[in-house]
């Protein structure tokens, strides 16, 4: 179950907001709510509309893929101070993965529909948001590439003399 609590000062403490200018801070704060997800509950499911993104304050979220007749595969875990979700930035704005709380997780949910609209209206605001998201996306892409390499699998020389 996802429960919404009142928004406190915590929004100012998340690294994502650090160094942010007053205008963007005000817009984001206006789109934000404080949430809690119980262990085992899903924050969102693949295919559902991506109407929020999340800043983790505490806990751990598993980004998962489900396949028939096998346990879900965890492709990444996201922990405190990380961001969950950028499907809200990319049409058709639907989640590409499941997100499940592995433990009690507290996070800040930002209303992405509201934010998208404001970004369309204000290019400066849109640039500021993208400037903060692109490094996160690039880092995740780098990490994914390393995981795909299967570095700890049998070495290229396997089957040779050694």
């Amino acid at each position: 179950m996802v429960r919404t609590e009142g928004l406190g000062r915590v929004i100012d403490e998340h690294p994502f907001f650090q160094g942010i200018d007053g205008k963007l801070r005000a817009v984001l704060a206006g789109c934000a709510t404080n949430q809690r997800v119980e262990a085992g509950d899903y924050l969102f499911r693949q295919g559902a509309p991506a109407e929020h993104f999340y800043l983790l304050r505490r806990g751990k979220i598993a980004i998962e893929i489900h396949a028939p007749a096998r346990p879900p595969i965890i492709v990444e875990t996201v922990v405190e101070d990380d961001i969950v979700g950028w499907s809200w930035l990319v049409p058709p704005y639907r989640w590409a993965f499941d997100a499940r709380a592995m433990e009690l997780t507290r996070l800040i949910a930002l209303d992405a529909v509201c934010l998208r609209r404001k970004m369309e209206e204000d290019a400066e605001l849109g640039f500021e948001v993208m400037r903060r998201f692109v490094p996160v996306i690039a880092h995740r892409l780098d990490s994914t590439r390393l995981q795909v390499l299967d570095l700890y699998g049998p070495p290229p020389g396997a089957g040779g003399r050694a």
Partner: protein
Amino acid sequence: MTAILSSDPMLPLPFRIERVKRELSDTFTLELRPEAGGRFAFAPGQFNMLYVFGVGEVPISISGDPADDSVLVHTIRSVGTVTRAMGELEAGNAIGVRGPYGTGWPVESAFGDDLVIIAGGVGLAPLRPAIYQALAQREKFGKVLILYGARTPEDILFKKELEKWRGRFDVDVLVTVDRATGRWGGTVGVVTNLINRGGFDHMHTTALVCGPEVMMRYAVQALEKRGVATDKIHLSVERNMKCGVGTCGHCQWGPHVTCRDGPVFRYRDVAALVPIWEL
């Protein structure tokens, strides 16, 4: 007892396998004692040439406790003809040993620093002696962090020891795997992500890194990004070691001969070589 030393560095000395421990599906540990008796002293990070009689010889890092020179411990992954044959050996069988060779982890040079140990896959084995040595002198370091990445939860090497180290109140142990199913409750992601999460003082940190070279490159990048000086980052580099004593040239790496000048290198000394894939 006296120290084991061969008068001929190319002559393997016979050791008896005392115990074989299956670590993972393709990885095992051999505990060896010299047939002639005596002690076998080594520095953490050094390697031996292990000879399976009639099959061949391979360089393998020592994975045991340097404080216990009565038994020689090697952890080996079966990747080819010799290591597969080694995996079929049993307690009581003989094996040839030449060594120890190469440079070691600079554990004592790190006194006063935070010590960050970063291992990927079977790369934890060459670092285990350094961990033993550091934990035996725990009070001489600031923070001690062990950051370990494995392929899956089933591929975590020395799992019980990682749990034991994590159970101490003076060591931080972070483990991640590249992929897992929903039954895994730990972290999923690359080991370099742990560097960003580990709390250490970058101004006073020594980092020891061992794993696949690609992993080490990215680990170094993450350490440099955190501000760790390149002369405080040390890598264990694997090359095609043959003689073990720096004469045959098989393991040449730019101006270095890995078996003699390495396998543990200070990153600052090899930074220009690391990105050159032809070497």
